[in-house]
């Protein structure tokens, strides 16, 4: 694929209109209202029900009922699967518009799921929609679209640096009419949920092919014999259960030949489909976290005194607040611009923009949350504020979907390619998803 200049540093006019489109505004307003009126009270009830559950990997009685009720309501109001392009026209929400909506979805942990727009299902559904066979769609896409089951994407492996996706080593060998899969995966997000039924699994099928044609993606039902879920990976001590980030061994797992997606050696090709939008959504949600942290920082700074002065007037805190605000506004514009670039230039061409925000946002949001922790004293690391939890999840984002370093390589090399005209290494993009 010849590399085209992604317009960084250039004045591509279309990239400078970052307004939400008029068409999307009713949906945006509706989602906002729905979260306020339906999701928030549902979440309160859901949390109360789950308070004393003994098995963290389960839902407490009644929890799924209230969730399902809200999902039904969303479906009835037409707030359902709006992440997905129209099956016939191929048109869907613009990335820019979705970015605005994602910022709203980020305000409640169950908002996305209530409207069937939560990761990793969204990426999986997109992939199935675009490259699935009729049978695959019937069997898996349909219940996913209906919100009846959930799914996972099994990519990352513990033994290798998965940021270079060529390293994936779980192998799938054809044996008669079956693929036999052996290997070890970790950080398989969502695989802890009892409703998770299917995993799209990245495997090496063709070790002798050129480096970018060795990988394939295969559908593996989670109850297939040989799929052994060992444990959840803790993130700063939290399991994030029941969703979970699971550690899974594939021990002679057999699935029918037809479970392959698109075809042998086309794993990378499929990955291109799923990378852009998801990253942007994460980044928009990260901004929500940063806004929250800043708000907490200011309120704490104004409400607490030491040495006879408000905390906000001590410790250089006012400047820290200012720096946080400046970063947030700059990040917001960058995320919106990356979303717009995807709309205008397409996901592939926009990848440098996407890498820019991926390398920029979680690192800086971590910094803002850390300052907010600091002004809270010991309260900041405890469960009395959401800050510690927010920190760990943002810190993890600096590793998920490619560590910062890989994205800096993408951006840095785009800069050098302006002078060399070289092509890009396509492996530098496909990585594990949260």
């Amino acid at each position, binding site marked *: 694929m010849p590399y085209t200049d992604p317009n960084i540093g250039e004045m591509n006019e279309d990239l400078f209109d970052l307004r939400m489109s008029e068409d999307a505004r009713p949906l945006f307003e509706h989602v906002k209202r729905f979260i306020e009126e339906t999701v928030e009270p549902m979440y309160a009830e859901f949390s109360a029900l789950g308070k004393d559950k003994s098995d963290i990997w389960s839902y407490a009685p009644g929890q799924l009922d209230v969730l399902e009720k809200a999902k039904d309501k969303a479906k009835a109001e037409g707030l359902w699967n709006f992440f997905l392009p129209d099956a016939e026209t191929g048109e869907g929400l613009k990335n820019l518009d979705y970015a605005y909506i994602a910022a709203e979805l980020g305000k409640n942990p169950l908002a996305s799921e209530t409207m069937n727009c939560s990761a990793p299902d969204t990426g999986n559904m997109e992939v199935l929609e675009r490259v699935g066979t009729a049978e695959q769609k019937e069997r898996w896409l349909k219940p996913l679209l209906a919100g009846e089951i959930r799914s996972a994407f099994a990519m990352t492996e*513990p033994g290798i640096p998965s940021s270079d996706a060529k390293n994936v080593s779980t192998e799938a060998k054809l044996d008669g009419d079956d693929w036999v899969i052996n290997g070890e995966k970790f950080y398989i997000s969502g695989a802890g949920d009892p409703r998770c039924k299917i995993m799209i699994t990245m495997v090496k099928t063709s070790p002798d092919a050129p480096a970018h044609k060795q990988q394939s993606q295969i559908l593996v039902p989670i109850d297939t014999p040989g799929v052994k879920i060992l444990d959840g990976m803790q*993130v*700063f*001590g939290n399991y994030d259960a029941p969703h979970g980030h699971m550690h899974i061994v594939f021990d002679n797992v057999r699935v029918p030949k037809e479970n392959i997606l698109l075809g042998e050696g086309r794993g990378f090709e499929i990955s291109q489909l799923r990378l852009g939008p998801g990253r942007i959504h994460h980044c928009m949600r990260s901004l929500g976290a940063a806004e929250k942290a800043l708000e907490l920082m200011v309120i704490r700074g104004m409400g607490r005194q030491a040495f006879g002065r408000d905390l906000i007037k001590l410790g250089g805190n006012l400047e820290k607040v200012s720096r946080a605000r400046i970063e947030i506004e700059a990040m917001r514009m960058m995320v919106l611009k990356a979303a717009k670039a995807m709309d205008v230039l397409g996901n592939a061409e926009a990848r440098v923009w996407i890498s820019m925000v991926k390398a920029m946002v979680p690192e800086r949001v971590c910094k803002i949350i850390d300052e907010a922790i600091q002004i809270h004293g010991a309260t900041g690391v405890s*469960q009395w504020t959401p800050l*510690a939890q927010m920190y760990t999840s943002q810190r993890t984002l*600096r590793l998920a979907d490619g560590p910062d370093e890989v994205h800096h390589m993408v951006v840095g090399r785009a800069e050098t390619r302006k002078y060399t005209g070289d092509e890009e290494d396509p492996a530098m993009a496909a990585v594990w998803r949260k």
Partner: protein
Amino acid sequence: MDFEYSPKTKDYIERVDAFMQAHVFPNVETYEAQHAEIGRWAVPPILEQLKEKAKSEGLWNLFLPPNAEHDTPEYQGAGLTNAEYAPLSELMGRVEWGSEVFNCSAPDTGNMEVLHRYGSEAQKAQYLRPLMAGEIRSAFLMTEPLVASSDATNIETSITRDGDEYVINGRKWWSSGVGDPRCKVAIVMGKTDPSAARHQQQSQILVPLDTPGVKILRMLPVFGYDDAPHGHAEVLLDNVRVPADNLILGEGRGFEIAQGRLGPGRIHHCMRTIGAAEMALEKMTRRLLSRLAFGKPVAEHSIWEQRLGEARTDLEMTRLLTLKAASMMDTVGNKGAKDEIAMIKVAAPRMALKILDDAIQAHGGGGVTSDFGLARAYASIRTLRLADGPDEVHLRAIARSEMKKYRENPNYPTHALAAE
């Protein structure tokens, strides 16, 4: 100036390191396996075995410096100064529970120092003896959830005399060590006389944890960690009655006692932190060497060379300043060393967190989970930037010393102190 350790220090360094290599590192997995088996709030038996072994080798109570006034044959440490002990504290800090093996872990060290210096004979017999023997553990109840405790005059817990007893009421949190079943006693800071001068309102008093009215409300997580079995508790003191003799030193002398305890504790924490940073740097380097990405070892991606180089540089500088602070405590006392102690209190956790953050980054998904201990070390050291006064307070104190030179003496000669 001489940057070599004395032969005595070198000898102890060798012995402690050898003990760590022979007995502690190889048992980290044992500890964790036992802990998983016996439950969060129980103590893995291996720990007590290692303590016996360390005691038998004379590697015990190393933290307690010689004190001519208070040392007695019954109550004395291993005879090491703060400066001699500091590098040992670093070596122990390479494993989270390493210090305890040598009976050198917080908050017992601070409590033992306080009792050693200010305790009555009866208090010593009852609490200092078993603490020094490693038979019980202890807590220090200072921070309160409802006030900015970095300004200690804000502490609100009341300690009221009632006949032969004191009655204590208040709410404390971040009471570290309370989760341990062996934790039997706490030193509690509170106000005996709210109407006294600002720094004479506070007192410190010994409270056995089984006294009626001591209610452990819950254990506080740090990020996702409960730090079991040590733990950080929120404690309600609800009409807790203890004998009047439990008061340490006397009414209104709480600040005086507190000031004595802070210096050495900070040095110990800083040196342990440096040990943790060394571990992180080692893990990072090994990891970078062992993994390939985009065709070459990650170690050869040049950004990592820069990070490693900066990590080693920051680590060495921080260690030296910490050792200097320890040495100043021995030579000019806690008060003379107060600026240096404030400096390392800020510098050491910042340095370690930067290295840990890079190490986490180098480990990918493994970094944030429990596999390499990095996320956990991060969470625990992050807390040090808040405990014992946040960075901002210490930087302010240093700044004020800086200003004082010129504020009080406008003719202060240009850098008379520059090279002192």
